[in-house]
Every structure is written in structure tokens, then in C-alpha cells.
């Protein structure tokens, strides 16, 4: 029975719910910008780690080349999409 019950998945699911709730407090409670940003950044990174490690099983594969290629590609797309969107919508130069 112990092998059949997916403990890490259930734990990951609970973690991701808790992290979402913590992030929500930024909206519901009155707090400073710095405080809110800190909470959001920490929960965002924790959330990403939960998803990647517990659901996507990152690090369980022996094939490190594929893993790093994937991460590099994802970072490239993610970083440039965010920078580009900031450039277009916020920085306005």
C-alpha cells in the first residue's frame, strides 16, 4: 500500500495550495510594497521549485545534457518574453 500511495505528489499538491494562499495575503492585507514583493518573490520561487521537482521529477533523470538544454531554452524564452513585455508596456522608451 505504501508504494501505491503517491506521497510526494500529495505533499506537492498541498504545498502548492498553501503557497498560493500565502501569495493571496498580499491582496487581502494592507502591507508595504517591499513587503508584498518579498512575499510574492519567495512564494513564486518556492512554487516553481515544487512544480519542477515534485511534479516534473526534475533531477531524477541521469541525462544532464537534456536537462540543462531544457533549462537554458526555458530561461531564454522566459527572460526575453518578460524583458520585451516590460519594454513595450512599462518602461516606454
Amino acid at each position, binding site marked *: 500500500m505504501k508504494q501505491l500511495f503517491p506521497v510526494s505528489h500529495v505533499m506537492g499538491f498541498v504545498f502548492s495550495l498553501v503557497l498560493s494562499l500565502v501569495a493571496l495575503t498580499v491582496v487581502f492585507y494592507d502591507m508595504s510594497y517591499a513587503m508584498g514583493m518579498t512575499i510574492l518573490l519567495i512564494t513564486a520561487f518556492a512554487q516553481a521549485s515544487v512544480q519542477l521537482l515534485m511534479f516534473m521529477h526534475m533531477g531524477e533523470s541521469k541525462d544532464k545534457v537534456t536537462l540543462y538544454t531544457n533549462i537554458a531554452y526555458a530561461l531564454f524564452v522566459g527572460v526575453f*518574453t518578460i524583458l*520585451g513585455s516590460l519594454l*513595450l508596456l512599462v518602461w516606454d*522608451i
Partner: protein
Amino acid sequence: MKWDEFFVFTHDPMLFAAMISIVLGGLAIFVGLTYFKKWGYLWTEWLTTVDHKRIGVMYILVALVMLFRGGVDALLMRAQSAVPENGLLNAQHYNEIFTTHGLLMILFMAMPFIIGLMNVIIPLQIGARDVAFPRLNAVSFWLFAAGAALLNISFVIGGSPDAGWTAYFPLASLEYSPTVGNNYYSLALQISGIGTLMTGINFIVTILKMRAPGMTLMKMPMFTWSVLITNVIIVFAFPVLTVALALMMLDRQFGTQFFTMSNGGMDMLWANLFWVWAHPEVYIVILPAFGIYSEIISTFARKNLYGYKSMVVSMVAISLLSFLVWAHHFYTMGQGVMANSIFSIATMAIAVPTGVKMFNWLFTLHKGKITFTTPMLYSLAFIPIFTIGGVTGVMLGMASADYQYHNTMFLVAHFHYVLIPGTVFAVIAGFHYWYPKVFGYQLNERLGKLGFWLITISFNVAFMPLFILGLNGMTRRMYTYSEETGFGPLNMLSFVGALGLALGFIVLVYNIYWSARYSPRDTSGDPYDARSPEWSTHSPVPVYNFAIVPTINSLDAFWYAKKNKAPFFEGKYEPIHMPSNSGQPFLMGVAFCFWGFFMVFSWWIPAIISALGIFATMIYRTFERDHGYYISVEEIERTENALRGDKQ
């Protein structure tokens, strides 16, 4: 909601005719299936299948139907604009038609046609027996079919989306588009988009993990490479669409303010998110086309592909650059000069890897023994016509110049000049090229060539005038214009071209019918003396694809095996493990279709019941124990002997 708003086809005789034809068509299919007792066949052989070849065939069939539907839209638009002050369509009807034309042609014609060819060919090209997740593949197809069905009924029930395929806010908001049209947009695209994302994951795993022994990445056929890169783009781009459509649905139906102009919303955020997805989407439909052309050109030039490595490198470069250029779709939206310059330079950079590919095809042709078959004609016509599209694309890519022809017919002409010779010619060429592999006989060459000339010439007649009209100042999406503008004659010429394209399509469909009846059967499995592994097995392909999995020790290994008279398949038959059929993906698609329909009209109770249906199919799958089945050695021998034409 009033019934009058629900049954919109009662407003317009043309829509009424459409409704009647849908009902009659459905009735004819129902009666036909019952009369010929084909319900059981349809269910066991097609609706429940997990065979990649059959799923591919279904994708292509739906794509052809959507090509017809989108083509009728195009004909109506061209007919409406053929003469000044025309009253064939009213403004609302015209808006709905250009919106659904764009959506259908990109998402429900080009994409499924490409995905269909991928499904049929990729496992054969890499020497696999199916895709990595056959059941998931069926789910992908039925979700796509559910989305397509949903978008098509919008025309007669409730009204189609009418804010362009881009659905820019605030125009697409509840305030300015109060009909359910754009609810259809968000839900139909969402459902089929989830299916596409699954396809992306499925094919990446298939190509990376299921290649025949010895086939390293750099020994893969070029079509497989292009599909691998395409699916990487799908996996990175489609989640953006999923999020954008979810926000759109929340804004329109649940009162959130993501894309509004007040309360902290930002209307331009939609345009930004949309194009972050939609620009890579352009490459999702063009890269497999490049792969198809590479296969066809090297087969019919009787040469190996020139510059294999540079082809791969340039496709990887295109895939990275495709994520850096989305803002060139809205240079005039009001961002600064710096932002426009950066995106302008990134855009022009794409011309470099694309140019590399162009020259590689030309060098492949150089000193080749070229045979002018129908697929080869499409591939050869692609090179100059696509170049016109590419060069006008660089013109549009220059931000300052773009202010002159932004949103004019010049843009419309440009993207048709890239998408039609790029994607449409490629899928038609691939369709002709791989047809014998799937059905065991070739399409007729004379009819194929007639269709080619009709389509190629009419395409230029239809779209070349639009470049001039655009430079003369005709904006896109105008439902009519006055005679003084002088736009009339060129628009009439374009309409004539559109009629020619329709004729070409009729020839194409007639060719399918004619060849099914009269074309001689191909028993060799390799009618073109081609190079890649899909031609090494029988046509039509047995359910297990390869009786013995080949060992690949070089690029074009099958070709060298033929030249050196060496055996391509070595070893003896072993029992083959295959996935079993299941009705679960089909039922899931049906549940999704109902869920989407009820969500469009905000009918919550039926929507919740349908959602429970979706979850029920998922739970069934979770607890299902299905280990597939084995094909015995005796059965393989029997099938192989029969396919080889041996007497029993």
C-alpha cells in the same frame, strides 16, 4: 437570452441556407451510416482508434473540411469586395466571416493538416511502432475536433466571433462585443489548444525516446527534425495562449478587469500576450512545411539534402528568434522608438537563417536529376513565391516604414504570400507525396498537375493585386468602399483569382475520388525510390508499422541499403506489443464539446454536469488497467506474406 439571439440563422437567408445544409448533411451521414450498417465499423476502426496513422488521417480529413469552410468564407469576402458599394454581406456578417476565416485557416486547417502529416509520418520515419503516448494522441485529436465543432456551430447558433482573429481588446470586450461570439472564441480555442499542447509533449517524447537503434539525432530525416523543433515551440508558446484565453473568458463572463481600460486593467496586455503566442504560432505552421519541402526536394532531385547541419542549426535559430519578434505585429500601438528598433532588428535577423535554408534547397537542386512530379512542382513553386512574401515581410519589419502600410491590404497580401506557398503548398505537396504510403495507390499525376497550375496561377492573380491596393491606401477588413476610391478593378481581379483557387480545390478533391477508383495499386511500398525509412515498409502500412525494427547507421540509410543491395531489416520476427483501442478519448471530446457550448451561453448547471462528465472520463482512465496486447509471430508472418502478395 431570447431565442432570437440564440438561433441567429433566422436573421439572414444565407445563414438559413447554411443551417439547412448542416442539418441535411448531418442527416445524410446518419442515414448513410445506418443504411450501410457502418456504425460498428466507424466506432471500432476510427472513433476508438489509437493508431497514429488513423488519427493522422482523421486530422487531415477534418483539415480538408475546414479548408472548404474557410475557403467559402474567403470567396464570400472576395465576392463582397469585388465591386464598390456591394450589398451581398452586411457589415456584421462580413466581420464574422473575416474573423472565422482567419481562425479556421490557421488553427483548424493549417495546424491540423500539419499535425495530421506529423502523426502519419513521424513514427514511420524514426522506425517506431506508434507515438510515445497513443491514448494521449487520441485525446489530442478529439479535443481539437471538439474545438472545431464548437467554432463551426457558432455561425448558426448564437453568432460567430466578430472582432478579428486577433480579438483585440477593448473591441472584444463584453462592452463592445456583447454577443456570445467572442465567448466561442475563448472556449473553442482553449479546448483545441489544450489538445495541441498534448500533441507537442507527445511528439517531443516520441522523437527523443523512440528512434530506431542507431538513429542519432543527426541521422534523423529533416522532416523529423523540423517536427521536433516545432513541438518545442508548441510547448513553449501554447501555455501563453491558454493563459490569455482564460483571462479573456474571466473578463467577458466573470467580470474581472484584466483587459479593461479602467480599474487597473490594460487593454494592450491582450495584444501583447496574443502575439507572444501568435508569432511562434506562425513558425509552428511553417517549420514542418520546410521539413516537407526538404524531403520532397531531395527525393525528386535524387540527391542528399545539401547542408544538413546548417539546416538544423538554422531551424534552431529560427525557433529561438521566433520568441523575440512578437511586437512587430503592433509597431503602431504606441511604444517607444527604442522598443520598436529592437524588435525591428530581431525581425530582420530571421531573414538570415531562412535565407540559409533557401540556398540549401537551391544547392540540393543544383545538378540534381529532377523529376517534375506534383509534389515537386509545389516545392519548386514555393521557392520564388515564398521569397516575395519574405521580402515584403522585411519591408513590413522596418518599424518606421510599417507606419505607412500597417493594417492595409499590403499586409494581407504579405501574409497570404507567406502562408499559402509556405504552409498550404507544403501540406498539399506532402499530401500528394505521402498519399501512396497511407492508401496504397498514388493520386493521379495529370489531375494533380492541373490542380497545381490552377492553384499557383490563381493564387498570384488573387493576391498580387492586394499589394497594389494596399499601397494605394485600401485598409484591411473594410466591408465596402466607394467607387471614387478606384479600388474596384483590382478587387474584381482578385475575386477572379479566388474563383480559380476554388476550382483548384475542386480538382484536388476530384483527384482523391478519381484515384480511389481508377489509380493502379502500388505494391512496392516505395513508388519514388525515396530515401527515408517510411518508404521501407509496405503500403498501406500494417498496424505495427515495421515487422522488424530497422537499424539505422547513417543518414538516408534506406537509400544506401538499396544502392548497396544490403538488407535493411535484419533479425527475426518477435511478438509485437501494441496499445489497445479505447472509447474514452472520444467520450472526453464529446463531454468537452458540451461543456464548451454551455459555458459559451453561461448556462452554469449544464456546464457543471458536462464538467463532471470530463472528470469521469479522467477518473476512469486513472483506475483503468490496460497493458495493451501482443501480435503473435504467426500473425505477423501471415500479414507480411499477404502484403508482399505471396499466395497463402
